[in-house]
């Protein structure tokens, strides 16, 4: 079983290479991508089973002696995230295919590279290999973001690229500093060094700052709302489900292993969580387009996601994991619903939309369910996560943070109602009544069209294609309600993983003995 740990990283890379070779055969590309994703999900489920009692599993690449081998290790947290990210990616790809966004011959190849980076970041137990996985993920994301090649994408791409490149360089500097002190970059040897050695804490702190940029923690969040509104809607859904969440995962991993849950850092983490929640939600108020609001809420939710780091109790970490797992899917569903609206009406501006509940009732449901889950309204999965998290905050004595979390939830609900009012209620606007049934869907500017003789865009065939746009978001919305109703089962599944994060003995033993 442990030898299979390399597959989540290797398989998508192989699939990406084959996708480049077969770039004229879209059906083959799709089959290949889904096969590799299916295998990764199956491996992930197997890993969840193996690690469900708090255990961990590890393997080393190349059998190099101590401190030199690259180790891949998975515990309950990583296994659960692996399954969730892979499933969300599969649904996001269904949306991309429904929208025709994979018309670009390299789209699926790039998505595969992105997935390889994400899965590699989740499974690696080596700081430098983590850096490499991040780069694999980011290089694919740079290209996916600028794939449409328009003026705004180029500009947003330049900002996104510059910020992330700077963060990557800082990550590398931190790794070098840490290596200079400890002499290794394996998590097994790095366990607790930041808590015991102040020099190592400087290096690890530099790494944490770099990861915080990628996670979108305030004040390093400015790139996120600028980039996510400019890329293709399906790309935005994929990014929202994968990119920043990997940053959050890394923060959890680093704090659990390298910092060994050092309590001296918690006030700072709590401060970052609180400020991130508030700044994100205030930013969303000023936006008048669906994706702009959603992107700022993404910043705000990162605050909730890192709140457990500042509390670091069993209840808080369990709540945090429940929240992270469901939020990842919910946010992707919201971006997919926003993308469906944009595709059908050719605009994302609230001022120009209205009354879609009459023309597209299923789309309204597909938006409403994840929106309620994001705001934390029962009986959705978001309610479970938020309730547990706020309860844990009050139990841990962080009354101010608990109160902020409650208030920010109200503002989140307010923003969701704003989108609902703007898009779905009221009188239908001309954009809504005259859907672009003949307009181009997906990449209007396929910069790499293989056959110039074929038309660069294909018409959206009225009703049949709309189902392909709505179904992915709707499926996640229904799942969010079902998970909300079956919450005790999810909590039982997540609790051992949370314990293993708080006391990563099994993980460290697996890593050092691999």
């Amino acid at each position: 079983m442990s030898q299979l740990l390399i597959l989540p990283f290797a398989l998508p890379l192989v699939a990406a290479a084959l996708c480049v070779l077969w770039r004229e055969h879209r059906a083959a590309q799709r089959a290949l991508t889904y096969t590799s994703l299916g295998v990764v999900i199956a491996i992930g489920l197997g890993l969840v089973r193996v690690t469900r009692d708090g255990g961990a599993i590890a393997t080393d690449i190349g059998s190099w002696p101590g401190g030199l081998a690259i180790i891949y290790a998975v515990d309950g947290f990583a296994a659960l995230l692996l399954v969730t990210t892979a499933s969300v990616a599969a649904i996001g790809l269904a949306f991309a295919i429904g929208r025709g966004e994979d018309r670009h011959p390299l789209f699926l190849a790039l998505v595969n590279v992105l997935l390889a980076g994400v899965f590699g970041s989740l499974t690696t137990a080596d700081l430098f290999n983590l850096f490499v996985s991040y780069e694999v993920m980011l290089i694919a994301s740079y290209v996916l973001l600028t794939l449409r090649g328009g003026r705004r994408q180029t500009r947003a791409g330049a900002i996104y690229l510059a910020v992330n490149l700077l963060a990557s360089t800082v990550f590398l500097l931190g790794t070098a500093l840490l290596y200079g002190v400890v002499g290794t970059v394996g998590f097994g040897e790095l366990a607790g060094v930041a808590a015991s050695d102040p020099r190592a804490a400087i290096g690890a702190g530099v790494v944490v700052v770099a990861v915080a940029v990628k996670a979108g923690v305030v004040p390093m969040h400015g790139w996120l709302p600028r980039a996510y509104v400019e890329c293709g809607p399906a790309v935005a859904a994929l990014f929202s489900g994968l990119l920043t969440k990997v940053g959050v995962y890394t923060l959890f991993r680093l704090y659990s292993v390298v910092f060994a849950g050092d309590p001296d850092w918690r006030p700072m983490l709590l401060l970052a969580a609180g400020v991130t929640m508030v700044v994100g939600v205030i930013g969303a108020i000023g936006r008048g387009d669906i994706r702009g609001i959603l992107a700022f809420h993404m910043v705000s939710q990162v605050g909730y996601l890192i709140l457990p780091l500042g509390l670091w109790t069993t209840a808080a970490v369990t709540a945090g994991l429940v929240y992270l797992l469901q939020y990842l899917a919910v946010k992707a569903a919201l971006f997919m619903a926003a993308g469906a609206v944009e595709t059908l009406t050719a605009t994302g501006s609230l001022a120009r939309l209205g009354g879609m509940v009459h023309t597209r009732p299923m789309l309204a449901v597909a938006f409403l369910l994840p929106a309620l889950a994001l705001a934390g309204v029962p009986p959705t999965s978001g309610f479970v996560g938020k309730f547990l998290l706020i309860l844990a905050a009050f139990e841990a004595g962080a009354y101010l943070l608990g109160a902020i979390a409650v208030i920010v939830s109200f503002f989140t609900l307010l923003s969701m109602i704003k989108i609902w009012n703007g898009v779905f209620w009221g009188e239908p606007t001309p954009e809504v009544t005259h859907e672009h049934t003949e307009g181009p869907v997906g990449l209007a500017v396929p910069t790499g069209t293989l056959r110039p003789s074929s038309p660069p865009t294909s018409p959206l065939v009225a009703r049949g294609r709309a189902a392909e746009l709505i179904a992915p978001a709707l499926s996640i919305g229904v799942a969010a309600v079902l998970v909300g109703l079956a919450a005790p089962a999810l909590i039982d599944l997540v609790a051992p993983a949370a314990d293993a994060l708080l006391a990563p003995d099994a993980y460290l033993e697996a890593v050092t003995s691999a």
Partner: protein
Amino acid sequence: MTAAIIVGLLAAGGTYLVLQRGIVRIALGFVLLGHAATTLLMAAGGVARRDVPFAGGSGAMADPLPQAFGLTAIVISFGVTAFLLTLAFRSRDALGHDDVEDRSIPEDRVVGPDHDRRLGAHPRDHLPMTSRDRP
């Protein structure tokens, strides 16, 4: 000490260039910052920590790990720099300049397919990707 000064100078120059507005200058800044990181990795190496990696070796050995790190980092930063320069080229083509703080593009306007279509009319947006794709 020499390494520390070199890292400091490279980081200072790189930071200055990254704060400029043109993408080409930003790219050059990242080249310098990348060199700073690589130099720091080299300086972080040491041989006292572990034995010679290959059995039977003797004498003074350089720490092999930072070299492997540095090589990987150089390759990655090379690839990203190439992409950044492509973006600068694309930017000149689509925008007419490579200034990232261009105020002529409205910030909070509608997004979505209609926007693409407006831009799509521009023939320069159909850039072929490789010679094979060229009509």
